[in-house]
C-alpha cells in the first residue's frame, strides 16, 4: 500500500512538471524582485544598493499604513460578503430551486464573465450626480429625499461602500457555484440520515451540511481573501484610488510607487509587504483548518 502511494517515480511524474514550470516562471522572478527591495531607483533612473533603507522607510510611511488599513477593512467586508452570500445562494440552488436552478445559476454567474472595466463604468453611471443624476440619485429625487442626494463616488466613505458592493456583487455567483459544487458532492444518505435524526432547516444546515463543506469553504475563503487583498482592477476602474488617496489599497500604492513615481525598489518592498499580508492570513486559515481536521 504505502509502496504504491510513496513511489518516487510516480510522485515526480505527477508533481514534477507543474513544480518546475511554476518555479521557473513565477518563483525565480519573485526571488529576484526581493533583491530589488534592497535597491533604490528604477530601470529608467538606474539602481543603487541601499541595504534596508526601504524597510526603514516602510515603517515611517504614513501612506503605506493608510493603504494597509484600507485594504484590510476592504478584504474583511468583501470576503465576508462573498462567502456568506455565496453560501446562501448555493443552499438556495440546492435545496430550494433544485434541478431547475440551472437558469438562475447561469444568470447570477453573469457578472463574473463581464469585463471589470465595463461593470465599473455601469456602477459609476448608476451612482453619478452630474451631468445628470444616476439611477440612485434619480430615485432619491423622485422619492422626495433630496437631502440624501450626494456625489457617492466622490466622497471617501460612500466610495468605500460602493466598491465593496460592486466587488461582492461581481463575485457572489462565482462563490455560489463553487460551494454548490461542494454541496452536490455531499452524499444524499448523509442528509437523509440527518433528517431522520430530526434535524431540519437551520439545524440541518448548521450541523450536517456546513461541516461537510469545510474544505471547499476554506479554499473559497483563502481565495477570496487573496483576491480582495490584492484588489486592483475594480478600484482603478471605479475611483482610481480617489477621491485624493482615500480608496488606495496597498496594491495600487505599490503600482503607483513603481511605475508612476519610478521608485521600483521601494515598490518591490511594498509588494513584499502585501505578499506577506496575504501569506499570514492564508496560513492562519489553512493551519487552523488542518488542526481542526486532524
Amino acid at each position, binding site marked *: 500500500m504505502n509502496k504504491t502511494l510513496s513511489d518516487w517515480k510516480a510522485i515526480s511524474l505527477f508533481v514534477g512538471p507543474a513544480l518546475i514550470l511554476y518555479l521557473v516562471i513565477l518563483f525565480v522572478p519573485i526571488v529576484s524582485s526581493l533583491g530589488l527591495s534592497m535597491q533604490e531607483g*528604477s530601470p529608467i533612473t538606474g539602481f543603487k544598493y541601499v541595504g534596508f533603507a526601504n524597510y526603514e522607510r516602510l515603517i515611517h510611511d504614513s501612506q503605506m499604513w493608510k493603504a494597509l488599513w484600507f485594504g484590510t477593512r476592504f478584504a474583511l467586508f468583501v470576503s465576508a460578503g462573498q462567502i456568506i452570500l455565496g453560501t446562501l445562494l448555493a443552499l438556495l440552488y440546492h435545496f430550494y430551486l433544485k434541478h431547475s436552478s440551472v437558469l438562475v445559476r447561469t444568470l447570477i454567474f453573469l457578472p463574473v464573465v463581464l469585463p471589470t472595466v465595463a461593470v465599473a463604468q455601469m456602477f459609476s453611471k448608476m451612482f453619478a450626480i452630474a451631468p445628470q443624476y444616476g439611477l440612485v440619485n434619480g430615485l432619491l429625487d423622485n422619492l422626495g429625499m433630496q437631502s440624501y442626494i450626494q456625489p457617492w463616488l466622490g466622497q471617501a466613505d460612500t466610495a468605500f461602500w460602493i466598491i465593496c458592493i460592486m466587488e461582492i456583487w461581481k463575485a457572489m455567483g462565482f462563490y455560489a457555484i463553487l460551494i454548490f459544487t461542494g454541496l452536490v458532492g455531499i452524499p444524499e444518505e448523509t442528509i437523509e440520515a440527518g433528517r431522520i435524526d430530526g434535524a431540519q432547516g437551520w439545524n440541518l444546515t448548521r450541523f450536517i451540511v456546513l461541516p461537510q463543506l469545510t474544505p471547499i469553504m476554506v479554499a473559497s475563503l483563502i481565495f477570496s481573501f487573496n483576491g480582495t487583498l490584492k484588489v486592483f482592477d475594480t478600484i482603478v476602474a471605479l475611483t482610481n484610488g480617489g477621491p485624493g488617496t482615500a480608496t488606495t489599497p496597498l496594491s495600487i500604492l505599490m503600482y503607483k510607487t513603481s511605475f508612476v513615481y519610478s521608485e521600483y525598489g521601494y515598490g518591490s518592498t511594498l509588494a513584499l509587504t502585501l505578499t506577506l499580508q496575504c501569506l499570514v492570513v492564508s496560513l492562519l486559515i489553512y493551519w487552523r483548518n488542518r488542526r481542526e481536521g486532524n
Partner: protein
Amino acid sequence: MKHARLTALSTLLIVSAFSAAEAQKKTVVFLSGQNRDVGYTKIISMLSDDYAKKNATFSYQHQAQLTDLTQRLQLLANSGTLPTLFSINEPSLLAQLATKGDAADLESYFRDLGIYSKLNPVAVQINKKLTGGKLLGLPLELNIEGIWYNKKIFADNGLKEPKTWDEMMAAADKLKARNIQPFSASGDQKWPLTRLIGGYAARKYGADVMDRVKDGSLKLTDAGFVEAARAVQEMGKKGYFGLGVNTIDYDTAVDTFLQGKAAMLYMGSWVLRDLNDKTRNKIGEASVGFFNIPAVKGGKGTINDWSINTGLTVGVNAKQLDKATGDWMKHVFSNYANLAMSDLGMLTGFKVTKTPKTIPALTKMTQTKLNAAKNGYLWWEGLFSPKATAISQDNVQPLITGDLSPEEYMQQLQNALK
C-alpha cells in the same frame, strides 16, 4: 505547447537564414501614448508611410501604448530595447534617460542633420525648460492654455471678459445666483484643477515662479501659494464647478461647456478639435471666446504671460541615430509643420512655411494670441518629479471639497519636492 515551441524554433531558423539579406533593412518604431490616427501621430505616420514607399529598405511601425506607458518604458529600458521614438509622460525621466545615454540631445542632432532652422524658437525655449535646459523632446505640438467662455451667456448676463481674479469671481457669483454653472472642470482628471492653482501662482509671483520654486528661492509654503490654493478651494466650496466635480471625466467637462450648460472652461488649445467639431459644439463657433488667467491683487505676473507647452513629451533613442534614421527624420520634420496645419489645423513647434487658405476661425484666433504672447510659463507640475506630480493632483480633490486645508496641501507638496 509543442506546436508553439516548434513555431518559435523554426522562426528562429528562418530569421538566422535571412539575417544576412536583412542587414540593410531599417525599421523605425514609434511607441506612442496615442492612437495612430490622431494628432501628431497621424501626421508622423502619414509622412513615414510616404517615405517608406520611396525607400524599399525602410519601414515604419506605430505602437500605441494607451495605458501603463511608464511601465512599458521601464521594461524596455531595462532590457536595452527602447524604440526609435517614444512618448514619455514625465519630462524628468527623459532627462534621466539622457544622462544614461539613452535619449538623444536633439539640438546638436538637428544641427547635424541641417534641420534645426525648421524649429520654432519659442517652442524650443519652452521645451528646454522641461528637461534641464536641453532639447530632449520633440516639440510636436504648441499649446496655449487659458479660459474658454460662452460669449452668449456672458452677454445675456451683462458680463465682460474679466481682467482680474476678483472680477472673474464676481462674474461667477452672479452666474451662480442665476442658476448657471460658472465653470466646467474635470476633477476626475485632476490636472484641470491644479492648473488653476498654477495660474494663480504665476500671476502672484510672475512667469518665472516655478523656476524659483525649483532653485529653492521660493517655498510652496509661502503665503502666496497658500493664497492660490485657497482661491481655488473657494471656487469649489462655493459650488462654481457644479455638482460632484471630482467624478466628472474629461469628455463630460468639455461637453458640459459645448452644450451651453457652463459658462467657462479652463483648457489647452488642443481642445480646438472639439470646438471645431460641429457635432459636439452646440453653442456655435461664434459664441466661443478665450481669455487668459486674470491678474491678482498685488501680483507681479501680467495677463501677457501665457501657459504654453509643447504637448506630451516624445524622446528619441540615442542609440539609433544612424544614417537611415537621420534621412527619415529629415524627411518627416521638413514637412511636419505644413502637413499638421493643412490636415488638422494644428499648431506645432515647427515653422509653417505654407499657410492653407482656410483655417477655422477659432484656430486663427488662438494662433494670434499665441504669437502675441510675451512670456511663456510651464504648467504647475511641469518641473515636479513624478511623485510630486501625483501628490499635487491626488490632493487637489480633497482640497476643493474642503477636506484638506490650503496650508496642508502646500505643506505636503513642498515635502514631496525634495
